């Protein structure tokens, strides 16, 4: 009699406990499973996955694109990269898919979710992160590192030597030229500009200009600040169609030097924001012309 009354209560409490035990037991499986004991630091990874457009471009530059088995949906340059297997966006990747492709090297950016990186490491996959380069030298260093990782050290060194020569030449060329005040805008609404913290700053300085936002701590800028700094040149990244809109907005401020001299330019976002050392210098040469050309 009493037992009967107690049984339902026990059922209520036992049922979840049973389920829990079931799960805990399966968790035990998890524990006892040695998750890929050795992560061989293979000299020559054969199956590489890129989690960012800049990395994809660097891989193509090094000539090892046939080892690239997957990249993100944003990796559209160079064109063949579009055809590769896609494993997500730069910020959000599909762990299962990556795991199933059995890569021996995954290259991440600072946009990659840290939890994802950790999960991949737990699964025994080697993950190397390339954060946003702080300046041109950093960009080159990262490229050399990548070269070392994939066994193309010599090729990487050659490429870097080449670009460094080109940059030295540029620096000499602009040494004695007038240094225009430059604003490099990379975002609209809110207005986002390139500060001294990252490599974008070098586009300006190496080209012989002065970045008006160099000392700014945060990238968010107000139009008033721009007006008071009065740059001679404004470079806007495309940001889809926003670039054109922003140009038109700036042109309304007739007091700006850049407007007076008609020196507001638009540059492709992808080109300028995820460069390889080579494309960086290409763009740099372009910018040199923009900064120091005669007023139109």
């Amino acid at each position, binding site marked *: 009699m009493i037992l009967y*009354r*107690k049984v*339902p*209560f026990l059922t*209520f409490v036992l049922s979840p406990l049973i389920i829990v035990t079931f799960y805990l037991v399966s968790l035990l499986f998890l524990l006892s499973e040695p998750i890929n004991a050795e992560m061989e630091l293979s000299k020559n990874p054969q199956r590489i996955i890129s989690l960012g457009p800049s990395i994809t471009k660097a891989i193509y530059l090094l000539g090892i694109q046939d080892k690239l088995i997957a990249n993100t949906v944003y990796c559209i340059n160079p064109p063949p990269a579009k055809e590769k297997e896609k494993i997500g966006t730069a910020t959000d990747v599909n762990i299962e898919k990556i795991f199933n492709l059995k890569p021996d090297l995954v290259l991440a950016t600072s946009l990659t979710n840290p939890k994802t990186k950790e999960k991949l490491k737990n699964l025994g996959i080697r993950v190397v992160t390339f954060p946003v380069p702080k300046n041109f030298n950093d960009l080159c260093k990262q490229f050399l590192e990548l070269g070392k990782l994939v066994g193309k050290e010599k090729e990487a060194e050659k490429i870097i030597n080449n670009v460094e020569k080109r940059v030295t030449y540029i620096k000499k060329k602009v040494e004695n030229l007038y240094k225009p005040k430059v604003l490099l805008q990379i975002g609209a609404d809110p207005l986002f500009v390139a500060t001294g913290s990252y490599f974008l700053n070098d586009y300006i300085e190496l080209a012989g200009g002065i970045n008006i936002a160099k000392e700014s701590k945060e990238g968010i800028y107000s139009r008033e600040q721009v007006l008071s700094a009065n740059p001679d040149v404004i470079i806007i990244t495309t940001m889809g169609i926003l670039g054109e809109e922003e140009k038109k907005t700036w042109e309304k401020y007739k007091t700006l030097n850049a407007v007076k001299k008609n020196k507001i330019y638009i540059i492709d976002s992808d080109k300028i924001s995820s460069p390889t050392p080579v494309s960086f210098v290409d763009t740099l040469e372009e910018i040199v012309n923009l900064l120091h050309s005669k007023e139109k």
Partner: protein
Amino acid sequence: MLKVENLTCGYDLKFNLSDINFNVNKGEIVGIIGPNGSGKTTLLKAITKVIKPKKGRILLYDKDIQEIEIKDLAKKVAVISQYSEIGYITVEEFVLLGRIPHYKKFQFLETKHDMEIVKKCMILTDIFKLKDRFMGEISSGERQTVLIARALAQEPELLLLDEPTTHLDITHQIRILDLIKRLNKELNLTVIMVLHDLNLASEYCERLILINEGKIHSIGTPEEVLKYQIIEEVYKTIVVVEKNPISLKPFVLVVTEEARKRSN
């Protein structure tokens, strides 16, 4: 059975009852009457330990209720207040809630005994046929009866009712109060009711406590309390008190403005 001694209580800065003294004997039906805001509900709250007395004490069977555990108090005292909306529950389940004070510490399901008591209460109040209906579906008169059944399920010795007849039509008012009277007789239940209708109070209560502005104005039988002088003083309105020809209890007649003019 219930003794209130020198009670002073209230809600902080708001209303206060002061110097309340009265006794209620077992098996009595006592009515608490008074104008709006005089403190009737406050008194009920004090008896049920919802508010603590500032001064004085309340004794149940000569024991200070502050020293009685609320669980034990709930086994002796049941309260029927205004119904608040819960529609999802059946009548039987609702009445079963009244057994909560009697559940033993680790008891999880209702015992046979609990079910029997509930059945008895529903039969006594004549709502057994409604037991599987949902509270949201039945009429307000039936709902009030269910509340009484629930209170009875607590197997109380003292029943407190806070204006049980508000929002009810005549039929149901009488039905409910007749039920209370019957329960008082059959189960020897002590009843304290707060009523706003003076005539109902007169018909159904053995004694009345008239509260005005936080103090007891008069205590006594309906004949003693429902005198036109007293009513006019407390309620500040002109009335005429007659005898109800059927029950011989006092009956308060309202005097409208028109009637006053006509008689003048």
